[in-house]
């Protein structure tokens, strides 16, 4: 079932592996030139903007690198549907017409019914709603896509099965194959945009990248009606103070973006606020097609919604926070700290000044209903 990860005997994947070999400065520059050219031809000067909207930071998994891990003693909350709507309206005022709803894995707090209610609450007001939530069965995906969700994002985190087992120590997420088949189930469930990715820092970046390429190549064949995006998040500081032992330095990061673009010209590449502003600006022309801006990675982060329901968990068990633990203005704990804290309008302005058109809306739910 995972054999496609090792089947790399195609011209596209062979070329991809070759482009990931060490290069000198002149070669890197020519890769970048070609990558920029191909990106403009396929995607023009448009950069799509989106914002993550965290619904919940409750989670029953332990993932060594994630701030939301079950055993982390952090402040948690699951936003009520009305609170989600208010967070969304705040983002709409800032310009966003494309929201990514994010939640940890918790069957009780983040049930499929809850997610469906959130989607149904938002689609009348938001042209494009996507989800980044725990893996599901096809029927559950079908319910969410029928409710109006258009995109689904799921990162494999690491394609190295040994590393995967080491970093995912508790919870349903331990099942590598179940997660790997997630994009295909989402496709069968009717999602039109599917995002995949690896979390760089957990294993050697080249082997991670080649496996990601093999996964993408497989998906392009099996899910021909879906539009794919790839994210290349690099680990950021979070609760639990995890230190990644495999770096993906900036130079190699650039090479990876260019190699992806050259071999997968039709695939979108997403750049989040995990990366600092100067680097984001420098990466703009190279192959990026979609960006988040002004992001918060905790539920209620945009408006302070949900603070009344905050609770502390210790080893996964909710405990009423002692008054001195819960300070005034306390917020739910974020998943990771962002590195580009410019506002959406500042990012849009920057895009314009560099000759890019910030595209807020490029989908209309009227197509579907």
């Amino acid at each position: 079932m995972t054999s496609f990860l090792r089947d790399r005997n195609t011209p596209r994947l062979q070329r991809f592996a070759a482009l990931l070999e060490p290069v000198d400065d002149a070669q890197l520059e020519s890769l970048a030139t070609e990558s920029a050219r191909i990106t403009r031809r396929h995607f023009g000067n448009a950069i799509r903007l989106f914002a993550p909207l965290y619904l919940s930071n409750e989670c029953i998994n332990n993932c060594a690198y994630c701030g939301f891990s079950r055993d982390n003693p952090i402040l948690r909350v699951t936003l009520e549907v009305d609170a989600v709507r208010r967070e969304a309206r705040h983002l709409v005022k800032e310009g966003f017409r494309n929201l990514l709803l994010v939640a940890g894995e918790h069957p009780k707090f983040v049930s499929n019914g809850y997610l469906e209610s959130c989607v149904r609450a938002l689609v009348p007001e938001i042209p494009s709603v996507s989800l980044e939530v725990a893996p599901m069965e096809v029927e559950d995906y079908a319910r969410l896509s029928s409710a109006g969700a258009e995109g689904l994002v799921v990162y494999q985190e690491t394609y190295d099965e040994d590393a995967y087992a080491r970093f995912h120590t508790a919870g349903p997420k331990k099942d590598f194959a179940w997660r790997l088949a997630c994009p295909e189930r989402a496709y069968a469930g009717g999602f039109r945009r599917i995002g995949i990715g690896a979390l760089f820092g957990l294993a050697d970046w080249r082997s991670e990248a080649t496996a990601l390429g093999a996964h993408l190549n497989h998906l392009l064949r099996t899910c021909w009606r879906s539009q794919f995006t790839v994210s290349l998040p690099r680990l950021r500081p979070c609760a639990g103070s995890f230190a990644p032992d495999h770096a993906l330095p900036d130079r190699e990061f650039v090479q990876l973006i260019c190699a992806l673009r050259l071999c997968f010209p039709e695939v979108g590449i997403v750049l989040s606020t995990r990366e600092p502003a100067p680097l984001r600006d420098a990466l703009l022309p190279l192959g990026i097609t979609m960006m988040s801006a002004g992001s918060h990675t905790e539920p209620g982060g945009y408006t302070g919604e949900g603070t009344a329901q905050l609770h502390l968990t210790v080893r996964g068990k909710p405990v009423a926070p002692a008054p001195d633990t819960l300070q005034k203005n306390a917020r739910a704990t974020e998943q990771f700290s962002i590195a580009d804290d410019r506002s959406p309008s500042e990012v849009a302005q920057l895009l314009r000044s560099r000759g890019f058109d910030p595209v807020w809306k490029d989908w209309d739910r009227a197509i579907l209903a």
Partner: protein
Amino acid sequence: MDGKPLLIAGRAFSSRLLLGTGKFSSPETMAEALQASGTEIVTVALRRADLSGKRDPFANILEFIDPKKYLLLPNTSGAMNAEEAVRLARLARSAGVSDWVKLEIHPDPRHLLPDPIETLKAAEILVKEGFIVLPYINADPVLAKRLEEVGTATVMPLGSPIGSNRGLETRAQLEIIIEQARVPVVVDAGIGAPSHAALAMEMGAAAVLVNTAIAIAPDPAGMGRAFRMAVEAGRMAHEIGMGAPLASATASPTSPLTGFLRSA
């Protein structure tokens, strides 16, 4: 030049260059390029526009296209089947955008290649409902005739995949489509250089639609002018007559094949 006007559904246009509105670096740049190109027909993806009538400042592309200067041709890009395309066309008409529609159905979101089956189905429905339908199709002569028979106003075959800038790679098929057509043939995609546009016009295409090559040029307005001239030059040459010269081969004094005509 004052050649024959382009006639679509009884309406005359002096420009034979249609423009797309995606991929520009800003709406202002787009507006300048439209102006410079001399175009009179401009297509816009409905999914990028605000159809609610609330004048969304974050989705205001329609405000940069003056309806007095251009025929706004909404397109159904984003639709993956006939049902979705029909829904979008109806929505555009009820929002007062237009009853003209560029019918685009591409279930494959990567190469944006059109679905012939769904396109024919949608065209049939839309024509019956009184829409003026301009379908984007692969360069398939049989499909072109089938669409003409259901009453589309044009056919719009691709020269090569959208955004590829590879020119008229489907040339042999385009020639058949043009030769057989009783509606205007608008070559729609893959035109990456003014010379491609000129060639399409020389071949007898009624018009061409260009987007990427103008939108991503370092000077989109300048490139818009270049395409305008190429389309005019190609059209003029076509109207004058581009028949292939006869007897271009070296004359043979012995006439082995036709000498018998003179020996009798």
